[in-house]
């Protein structure tokens, strides 16, 4: 019997799609919540207040230095013990990805905001715009343009990193794949490659459009 037949077993593809849905859900919620967090963190990082800057520095460095897996375990096991806050595995994943994505996006936002030449806000000031009007109508739109390609890349990274959720026992697409492989070990000994092949394809389908969007925007905004 060929390994590819495993895919035709009743329930295999629907179960993989269900797993994919969990992956996409975790990624989408995390990315969605990252955006306001990242904008806020990025804005805070540009402030001159030394206390705010210091706190943001610690936040960013802590998140960057810790492996995402360690963060996941901290959130899943640590929170329950220290704060008596029993997060379920999916919740812990979403929380960690928001904190991680928020820090990374925040740093991108900071870089983008600081890359806008001073003369832009000076022109806005001389024209009488308030600080807020200058931020909303002049600085932020320009920063977002510079930010978009890199932040789409970050979104792809978040989608891929959701696979770590397996280790907390979340039944997302990889876990489903493992379960199917285990259950059919004797019947389809060559099924492994096919299942992981399908999973590869699913990740590709989710991430590829993001890459295309990023490349398009990069090209369109290259000339200014």
């Amino acid at each position: 019997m060929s390994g590819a037949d495993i895919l035709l077993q009743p329930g295999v593809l629907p179960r993989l799609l269900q797993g994919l849905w969990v992956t996409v859900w975790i990624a989408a919620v995390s990315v969605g919540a990252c955006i306001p967090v990242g904008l806020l963190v990025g804005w805070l990082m540009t402030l001159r207040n030394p206390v705010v800057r210091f706190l943001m520095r610690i936040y960013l460095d802590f998140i960057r230095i810790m492996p995402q897996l360690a963060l996941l375990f901290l959130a899943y096991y640590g929170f329950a013990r220290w704060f008596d806050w029993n997060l379920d595995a999916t919740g812990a994943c979403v929380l960690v990805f928001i904190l991680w994505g928020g820090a990374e996006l925040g740093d991108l936002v900071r870089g983008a905001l600081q890359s806008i030449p001073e003369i832009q806000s000076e022109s806005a000031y001389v024209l009488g715009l308030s600080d807020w009007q200058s931020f909303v109508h002049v600085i932020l739109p320009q920063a977002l343009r510079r930010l978009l390609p890199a932040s789409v890349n970050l979104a792809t990274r978040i989608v891929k990193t959701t696979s770590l959720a397996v280790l907390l026992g979340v039944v997302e697409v990889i876990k489903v794949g493992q379960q199917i492989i285990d259950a059919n070990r004797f019947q389809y000994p060559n099924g492994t490659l096919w299942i992981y092949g399908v999973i590869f394809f699913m990740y590709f389908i989710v991430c590829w459009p993001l890459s295309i969007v990023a490349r398009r925007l990069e090209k369109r905004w290259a000339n200014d």
Partner: protein
Amino acid sequence: MTEQNGDAAALSVRHLAKQYANANKRVLDDVSFEVPKGRVLVVVGPSGSGKSTLLRAIAGLEPIQGGDIALGGEVIETGRPGSEKAGRSARSSELRTRIGMVFQSYDLFPNKTVLGNIMMAPVLVLGRDKAEVEREAIELLKRVGLADRKDAWPHELSGGQRQRIAICRALILHPEVLLFDEITAALDPEMVREVLDVMIGLARAGQTMVIVTHEMRFARAIADEVMLLEDGRIIERCDDPERFFTQPETERARQFLRTFEFERAGHDKP
């Protein structure tokens, strides 16, 4: 033109002192002058003399540590000792619209079209009617010969076109004083002329202006008064530009003007 403060100069600067943080020398030291309504003051001087800083201080971009600045007789800025790190002036938006400024580096907003750039401040700051502002913007664009580029984006324009748009963007607020900070210094020679012509047109129309420039022939053509600045001090002031450029009073001015003259370079015979 309505004359509220009949005798008051459009702009007067008195005993202006400016110092940067961590510097023990003043960039502007006891600078005083007046620009009567409808007149053009040209400020010249070697680089680092404080010309740009002077304009930036008038526009509120730099805190001043002494003296004051008045607009139409009304004091809008008073120097405060120890304010080196204070950042931009806290003057009101309305007050800022009364002084226009065009910078050396291209400063159009790249995220807005030509019309978007020009219309932004009158609509956002003064709350004027959009359609009416657009009509006026197009009139201004016609004046500088760029009406056909109203929907273009800044990156599609040449340096000279951008500077002419920047002038329109300042003009639409009807500023009482317009400041120009070496606005042709970064332009290719062929583009300098089109920008300078626009400024000469403004001078004819009675716009009060303070111009910092290195174009001495242009200065001679447009100035009602010339001021030579060095090391933050006024070296010479002259309300007769012809005289300043041919027979300046001070030795320093003669020396400065000579740096713009060239003698025929003869070749040594081999």
